[in-house]
């Protein structure tokens, strides 16, 4: 096929370039800010590239010492990891068997989906007050594990929805054969369903991980100190009104974005495929 130059092709390329700039530039600017000195960021008008790279902001956030910013930031990094991983682990542990039952034995498929959407659409402000009171009563404020359980409010429905539709797509005949051989539910789930489910599970786990990493509202309410405070809260506090070291704020933002952005770029295909296949089924 011969290719001829067309005006529409030119337009498409222009649009593509514009799109690329639109996607990249805000974040690129955040990165540039993080390696500029704070004096350069208050010039008027701005200089777009720093004269020399200044990593002092990163140093301040990543060097440990009692009662320092670095200590708080590193603890928050640890807490964010613990909370997110626990949330994912817990959700998987309880949703896989449940989703299996829903998929194999439920007469009314739509009930689960509607329930998932229903719980997903409730604003956190609708249940944060009783949750707060509950955590207070059982002495669970400012604890990563408790926060992870709270995060199940939005991760669980999401997991059930996606995992169930993934199990739906695994042919039941495979299990039937096993049942005839006398396999119990544990063998059916672990030996037959799980191996086939693994890719989908990976996707769901990554999505949940990103969701839990992103969460701010509950963490702001339910954590105070370095024992459980998470990165979004630390960064939001860092950037709040009275702080004007713009390079420090930007460095915090870059560091907090790195894990999800890297995961996202590496596993992009899997992430999106999982979401689409799960959603479109119903």
């Amino acid at each position, binding site marked *: 096929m011969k290719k001829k130059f067309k005006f529409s092709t030119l337009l498409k390329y222009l649009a593509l370039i514009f799109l690329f700039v639109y996607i990249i530039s805000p974040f690129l600017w955040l990165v540039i800010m993080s390696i500029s000195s704070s004096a350069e960021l208050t010039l008027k008008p701005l200089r777009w590239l720093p004269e020399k790279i200044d990593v002092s902001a990163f140093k301040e956030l990543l060097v440990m010492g009692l009662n320092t910013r670095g200590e708080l930031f590193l603890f928050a990094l640890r807490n964010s990891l613990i909370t997110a991983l626990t949330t994912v682990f817990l959700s998987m542990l309880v949703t896989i068997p449940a989703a299996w039952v829903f998929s194999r034995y439920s007469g009314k498929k739509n009930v689960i989906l509607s329930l998932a959407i229903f719980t997903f659409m409730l604003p956190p402000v609708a249940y944060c007050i009783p949750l707060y009171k509950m955590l207070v009563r059982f002495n669970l404020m400012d604890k990563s594990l408790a926060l992870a359980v709270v995060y199940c409010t939005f991760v669980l429905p999401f997991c059930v929805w996606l995992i169930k539709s993934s199990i739906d797509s695994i042919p039941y005949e495979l299990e039937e054969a096993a049942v005839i051989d006398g396999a119990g539910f544990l063998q059916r789930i672990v030996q037959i369903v799980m191996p086939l489910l693994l890719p989908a599970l990976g996707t769901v786990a990554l999505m949940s991980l990103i969701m839990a990493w992103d969460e701010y509202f509950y963490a702001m309410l339910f954590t*105070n100190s370095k024992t459980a405070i998470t990165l979004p809260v630390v960064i939001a506090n860092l950037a709040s*009104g*009275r*702080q004007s070291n713009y390079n420090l704020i930007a460095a915090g933002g870059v560091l907090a974005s790195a894990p999800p952005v890297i995961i996202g770029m590496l596993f992009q295909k899997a992430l999106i495929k999982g979401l689409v296949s799960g959603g479109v089924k119903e």
Partner: protein
Amino acid sequence: MRKNFVLSFLVVCILLTLFASTVLAEEEIELRFLGMAQAAYSEQNVNDMTADFMKDHPNIKVSTEFVPYEELRNKTMLAYGSSNSYDAALVDDIWFAEYAAKDMLLDITADIPQEYKDGVLAGAWNVTTKNGKILGVPWFLDTMYLFYNKDMLSQAGFEDTPKSIEEMVEMAKVLKEKGIVEYPFVFSMAQAEALICVYANFLEAYGQSFQDAEGNYILQDSGVETLEFLVSLMDEGLLNPNSLEFLEEDVRRVFSSGDAAFTLNWAYMYALAKDPAESSLAPEAVGIMTLPGKEGIKEHAAMSGSMGLGVLSKSAHPKEALEYILYLSSKGVQDTYSNLQLPVWTASYDDPQIAAGREDMVAAAKQAFSIMNVRPSEPNYQEASAILQKNIQSALYGDVAAKDALVSAVEEINQIK
């Protein structure tokens, strides 16, 4: 298998924490202190003080946490409501009444050493005393001072400082006309307490007050002139329009970059505006004074923005917590770290070392403390303030007239009362 593993792992974890906490409790006392990020004493200052305190008290470990002012009250209350309350916290003067009403602060009237009672400025004790009970140790007395750029004023031919609000506005008009600065004024007027502080200082300069003697808000009459004045600054292009999203730190940036001639800010800005690493102004260009009053009404005005340190009544170690806050506000510590914030000790003001190099600031402080007034002190102030903030901003945007804004503000406040 996996479940068993997780279960045993959890059990081990729980046992370890229990073990650790019981063992540690005997040897080391842990205190949690909640302070404020930026403004007043810097985080670094407080941490240095704390490190010194821990050196003297090896059995006490203090962990400090800092949140922005806007989160300070909510954090204190949320943590207090939980079983993991802070032991000591920074308390703004407007919160003492509310905390007292909720019994959140320990009554330390009997535990204040005589030397503190005698040595600390009397005005400072007023801030931390409610219903005759001392609920906190004064940490700093502060007000919004008028900062001015001396270079700009002399460029416009003014050698003296303004004697009244009117004179200040005249100067600003000249500065703008001569093109010396686009917006002579910049204030912290975001929808936050900072806006009320600015408004309250001008209200004071106009010789008016928030409430009548019975505690009823009367701003729909008393406060209109002040608000109309602020609106006129905005309308005439004398006030930086970005003021409506600024907090104190933004204001400091603008003033320190030479983009404003006058501003109101707390004492901490003085040292920072003179610091070449933080400011592009020549140190000798930074002027500070108490806000002048309205002509014929008064000469100077100051509205308190002081803070105290309190021991939360749920603290497990009230004795040590008190010891800690007394240390933070002791004369020695306050004199050492007086760079950003002046001490609360009367004697410090006669100490030439404290005043060295900043005689103007110390003079302004002395004057301010002698005339300082306070914002309403009552349990639901925070909510009343939020209502005021919204209505004052509406007027500044020109959505409603100043009078109407204050009428509806007072109406709304009366509803919550």
